[in-house]
């Protein structure tokens, strides 16, 4: 009978990988090392594949138009030029698109944080008739595909006269979403009630407790939600596409997509310049707040 012993490879990290050592120890160790190398290579290749399209985007944005249509494709621009950028700024309202996206998204983000957290606190801590039914309703609608509300909402915008205005882009989303309220409620429920009880004893009302005690403790959750909301609305496409028809009022993704289907269709340096510009804000936020992205996704995944 083979004797199998267990050895912990590294005791320092929280991740412990048991390695079964058999009598064929040396060969097994070689296999493990080889396997690790292969895994690294696989990961590196995949990692490069994730980075490569963006590098290509960047490099194409600095190319002359003729250089794009060469085969085999050349990675580096030769010569380097800014004409892609000048063209997109000169012949498309990308300034407006950039402003629109920033204005719309930051407005929605801050507003949603305020109203979602208020509502989430009420659902988490306050008692009022119908509370659970309403919350169930929120949860139920999270499963409804967006196409269902798309057309009626559009018609509503039309009848309110909000088509082709900032109102259509912002107002429907100003007061929070079912998802945001859900996320924050889960978080608020983890705050120990003793803190609120103590505040109550000191005579604080509900609003004061909310502002002075709950909110300061919720910074990570708020940051996570903020980042999520920003990401969602920065990249949102279908809704802004249908409610805005004036080129100047479009948001960045929509503007780029629309011109890519028309007069700019083959001007790749200019198009790539546009996409580079559209990526800069979100990438900055991503690198600055990476763990909030991961945190947010993990929270939604575990809770299902």
């Amino acid at each position: 009978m083979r004797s199998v012993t267990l050895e912990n490879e590294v005791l320092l990290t929280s991740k412990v990988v048991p390695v079964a050592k058999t009598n064929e120890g040396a060969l097994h160790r070689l296999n493990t090392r080889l396997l690790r190398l292969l895994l690294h290579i696989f990961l590196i290749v995949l990692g490069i594949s994730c980075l490569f399209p963006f590098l290509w985007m960047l490099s194409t944005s600095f190319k002359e138009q003729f250089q794009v249509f060469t085969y085999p494709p050349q990675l580096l621009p030769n010569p380097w030029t800014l004409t892609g950028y000048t063209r997109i700024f000169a012949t498309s309202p990308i300034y407006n698109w950039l402003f629109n996206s920033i204005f719309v998204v930051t407005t929605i983000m801050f507003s949603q944080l305020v109203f979602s957290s208020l509502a989430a606190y009420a659902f988490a801590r306050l008692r009022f008739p119908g509370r659970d039914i309403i919350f169930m309703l929120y949860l139920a609608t999270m499963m409804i595909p967006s196409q269902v509300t798309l057309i009626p909402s559009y018609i509503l915008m039309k009848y309110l006269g909000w088509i082709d205005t900032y109102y259509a882009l912002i107002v429907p989303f100003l007061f929070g979403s079912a998802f945001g309220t859900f996320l924050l409620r889960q978080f608020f429920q983890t705050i120990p009630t003793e803190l609120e009880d103590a505040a109550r004893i000191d005579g604080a009302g509900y609003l004061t407790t909310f502002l002075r005690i709950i909110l300061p403790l919720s910074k990570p959750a708020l940051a996570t939600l903020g980042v999520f909301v920003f990401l969602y609305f920065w990249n949102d496409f279908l809704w802004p596409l249908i409610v805005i028809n004036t080129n100047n009022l479009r948001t960045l993704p929509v503007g780029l997509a629309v011109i890519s289907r028309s007069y700019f269709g083959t001007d790749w340096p200019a198009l790539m310049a546009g996409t580079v510009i559209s990526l800069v804000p979100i990438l900055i936020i991503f690198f600055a707040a990476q763990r909030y992205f991961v945190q947010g996704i993990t929270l939604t995944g575990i809770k299902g």
Partner: protein
Amino acid sequence: MSRAARQQALVGYAFIAPNFLAFLIFVAGPVVAGLFISFSEWDLLSPPKWVALQNYVDLLTNDRLFWLSLGHTIYYALLTVPAGIVISLALALLLNQGLFGTRVYRTLFFIPVVASSIAVALVWKWFYNGEFGVLNWLLSWFRIPPQNWLTNSQLAMPAIALTVIWKTMGYNMVIFLAGLQDVPQSLLEAAAIDGANSRQRFWSVTLPLLRPQLFFVLVVSLIGAFQAFDMVYVMTAGGPGNATLVYNYYIWQNAFQFFKMGYASAMAYILFLLIFVITLFQVRYLGKRAYYELG
């Protein structure tokens, strides 16, 4: 109700008021209104005309493109969902080994997730270009002849699917990673002591414990697949010759190019029903089973 309880209730209503009212006006209301709209013919220029179930009948019996777009979307889901789950699970397993540079890899895989679908679609559209695209050039190293990825009706959908898998694998990977970290080492060690090799440990210990994450990723991916639009809009506009016409794209065409609001709304409700049934199915057969208490 006592005075304190009444006060609390009032505060509660006040706190949720903006949130809930907006919900009623912009979410719940439209859901109900959409149903009525689907029972009408409406081009927004003239008043709506009540047609009861005629839209549904027309869609199901008289519209080749309805079935085509549905079929395409199912095809698209079959291409993206299983492969996506397998790849992101594999990546999560790899990154869970505690290899050097895990943080960097995680960041790299996640960048496509935060990039807008438009930016991704545009650069990949260029990658797929038949004459000058990078993909064809890379494949030429493996002696594979150049293809017209987006203008070939057989290849267009798989091409879009590949881009989408690439874009979303980081997201699901993070979910699986979180789930993997909850798998107790003690259980794996116990299995190893009992003589299980790593493959057996994976199938018998790790995978069952990942059931909640698998369920979540499956449901979300499936719903996401039925909402595909952005990539198709930018890369192929439904072509070539309707080869990539997906359900959501056809809805958009009916509503905003043909101005058949009622018709498109009916399509949306059929989709709602479909997703509801599928999700019900998934909950029933793959849903949360009993958790085994761990020590």
